[in-house]
């Protein structure tokens, strides 16, 4: 009785899972659905191509690899260079040629072999308490290891991709030893054990637990326009510092959100269409409007809101260099206990 029903049921499950095969793009996303849905809806409305999403923060590269040629995935979307690089490193991405992508994305924001492409930029910035930190007292990311700020800094764990990438950029600039000294100094300035995400750091500044934090720039926008009145208050209590802006300095560290086409994609044409769509003016503007990110497409200006935070110089370090140094960065993080 039961014995016969269960296999039948599984047959159905498998059948339905593999049924749909019209024009569509299957996406493995490291980015939350509620953030990418507006883009995907706009794409579907324009082209009539359906999109399907699996979202997970971890493990999608392993899934793609294990599925091999049978994988249903067409497109990978991630929120940082580290993960994009892992896909490339594992040989999971197809090299694609697209004039449009070449034109829309500057060369330091995509891979040399055309496997992955930056779609938006986010700056890692310093925020300080309006009340307690004088304007101009912090100029560079290096300043955060100054003993003057003892017990004043809040941070999310160093092993988070955003901090790891930041440290990698510091290694690229100053070398391993100096980077480690900086990280050690930063850790000794922390007001509390590293914890929470960027949003939580701002909350801690507002409530006076610390005065300084490093966040991705879009968090400031999200808080400033939050539906929650408390979070809008948090944003009001902050000054923004784009670090390393002096003429002799390298500029603020930027990371990218990006994507690439899966090597064994069965809908490559549609997947490339979606990538191209994401670098087009409509979508590039959307990145700023919805998520307060900077466009990669040089022909598009940052949104008015972003402009009002001030213009800034970005670190032009080739983005894949950061990915390559991420292992070394993690080792430093382990050693200094960030």
């Amino acid at each position, binding site marked *: 009785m039961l014995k016969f029903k269960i296999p039948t049921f599984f047959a159905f499950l498998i059948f339905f899972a593999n049924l749909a095969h019209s024009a569509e793009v299957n996406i493995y996303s490291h980015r939350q659905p509620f953030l990418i849905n507006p883009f995907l809806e706009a794409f579907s409305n324009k082209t009539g191509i359906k999109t399907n999403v699996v979202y997970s*923060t971890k493990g999608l590269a392993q899934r793609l690899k294990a599925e091999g040629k049978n994988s249903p995935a067409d497109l990978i979307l991630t929120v940082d260079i580290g993960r994009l690089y892992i896909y490339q490193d594992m040989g999971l991405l197809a090299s694609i040629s697209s004039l449009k992508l070449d034109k829309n994305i500057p060369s330091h924001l995509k891979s040399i072999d055309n496997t992955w492409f930056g779609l938006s930029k986010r700056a890692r910035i310093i925020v300080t308490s309006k009340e307690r930190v004088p304007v101009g007292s912090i100029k560079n990311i290096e300043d955060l290891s100054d003993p003057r700020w003892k017990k004043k800094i809040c941070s999310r764990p160093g092993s988070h991709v955003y901090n790891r990438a930041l440290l990698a950029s510091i290694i690229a600039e100053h070398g391993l030893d100096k980077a480690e000294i900086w990280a050690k100094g930063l850790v000794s300035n922390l007001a509390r054990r590293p914890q929470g995400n960027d949003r939580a750091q701002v909350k801690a500044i507002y409530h006076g637990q610390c005065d300084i934090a490093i966040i991705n720039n879009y968090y400031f926008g999200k808080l400033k326009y939050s539906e929650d009145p408390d979070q809008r208050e948090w944003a009001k209590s902050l000054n923004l510092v784009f670090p390393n802006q002096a003429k002799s300095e390298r500029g603020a560290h930027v990371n990218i959100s990006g994507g690439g086409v899966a090597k064994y994609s069965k809908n490559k044409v549609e997947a490339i269409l979606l990538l191209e769509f994401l670098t087009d003016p409509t979508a590039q503007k959307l990145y700023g409007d919805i998520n307060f990110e900077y466009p990669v497409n040089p022909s598009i200006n940052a949104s008015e809101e972003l402009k009002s935070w001030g213009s800034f110089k970005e670190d032009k370090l080739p983005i894949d260099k950061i990915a390559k140094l991420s292992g070394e960065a993690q080792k430093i993080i382990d050693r200094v206990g960030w």
Partner: protein
Amino acid sequence: MFPVVNNTLLWKILVYFLSVALLSPLISLLLISFGNTHGLWTHLVETVLARYVMNTILLMLGVAALSSVFGIFTAWIIARYRFKFSKVIDLMMLLPAACPAYLVAYAYTDFFEYAGPIQVILRNLMSWSSPSEYFFPEIRSLGGAIFVLSSVLYPYIYLLARTAFRQIPESLLEITSLYNKSSFWKLGLPIARPAIVAGVALVCMEVVSDFGTVEYFSLETLTLGIFNVWIGMNSITAAAQLATFSFIFIIALLILEIKSRYGRRFNDTSRKQRRPEILNLKGTKAFFCCFICLLPVSFGFLIPISILLSNALGGLSWPSILESFVILKNTLLVSFVGSLTVMFIATLCVTVSKITDDKKLQVFSKLSATGYAFPGTILAIGVIITVGYFDKIFLLFDFTNSNSTFYISGSLFVLIFAYLIRFLAVGYGAILSGLEKTSPNLIWASRTLGISFSGTITKITLPLIRPSIIAGGVLVFVDIMKELPMTLLLRPFNFDTLATHTYQFAHDELMSEASLPALMIILAGLVPIIFLNKILRSNYK
């Protein structure tokens, strides 16, 4: 104790085959760990490994101690005394089992951290203005993690201890009172010890595999370390090595659990033993008992659910409610199919290995249930790799070359397979304890009367252990509903469960958006738990 039954070769082969299939994800992980890590292991030993191990051990010991305190005293009170509301409280004791630990961690952090309402009120009252002016325990800490995990995991100990306390024969209780000894310390605790140890072992396994809570609290345990190595250093090999290393803990706990089972093995063939009398309490004593029992319930259920409720009310909108209901349907479906599958396989493995008294098979099927103590995401990777192999094997048989249409990767089947590996231990334990209470005489009799092996199982064994099957099934159902990391990684396209839906918001610390689906997970878990309690209670009558 069970008779050796012949003509069971086919059954045994089937169970061997199943056990191997279930073990294969763990074997895949083991194989990965043989890879080269280019000196990463030295780096780990030199820097973080000691910290990871120390934190893991402290967390395990802390949770074992606190959840025992929560579970054992309350179980004694409920098993021995009757007072106003005692029946309701008995039921409430189990409610924290419906709360995923990571959600309770989210709720408590929001509430108790420096920026949370409690400390804000304190600061306003005392006109403090900075953290240096007063001391308040940090919720995101080892102590906080011990508190949160104990508050939701103690029901495992409570359930097993309560059952053991209820089975103490009246005659023994009379003797202790005759000698004027404490019936709890001198009789109850020693008799229930094996059951308690089994419960503690289960709790510890949950602790070892926990990722959500330790990640949120940034507590560097082995499980968190596995992720730092894997994602941060891009080395799945070193991550698999760490996972294999943490397997030592799991094996130790498993041995503990098996030993404790031997300690309480008995065949209760006589019904002559008098059940203990339940004592009536009134007045202050009754109030005191109520209070003691309500403490852990408040920590693991009432307080976190109130926090979530007040958060959810802040961000409530019709679209979000409707969306949650659609997702609820998905969740119930996979939980139902998953628990059905787990119980079917668990029943098969346990009955065959136990009744044929094949020791090797018992060890084998026990091993295949160790997935329970692996961190979900790591186990999920083992599952993916295994399923990838299955697909490649299927392709070999695909003579029509229509290979694009039939494969299991990315289907719901993968998810169900993963649940099977993860939660087999839960079903396994439930059925084993049921089977150990049935007398082998019945099986002897049935076989002597010429009934076949399969006939004996379906006619004698299954009806006898039916309550255990249902009880185990309910536990698995609730476990699947709460499961996050494997579902997140292995699900098909456009497929959300309440847990994954909650996660996308909670990951961004958007508490008001996360609270509604979080509440629904808990509420949907309450129904099966109440049902479970009914079954267990009717067993005593």
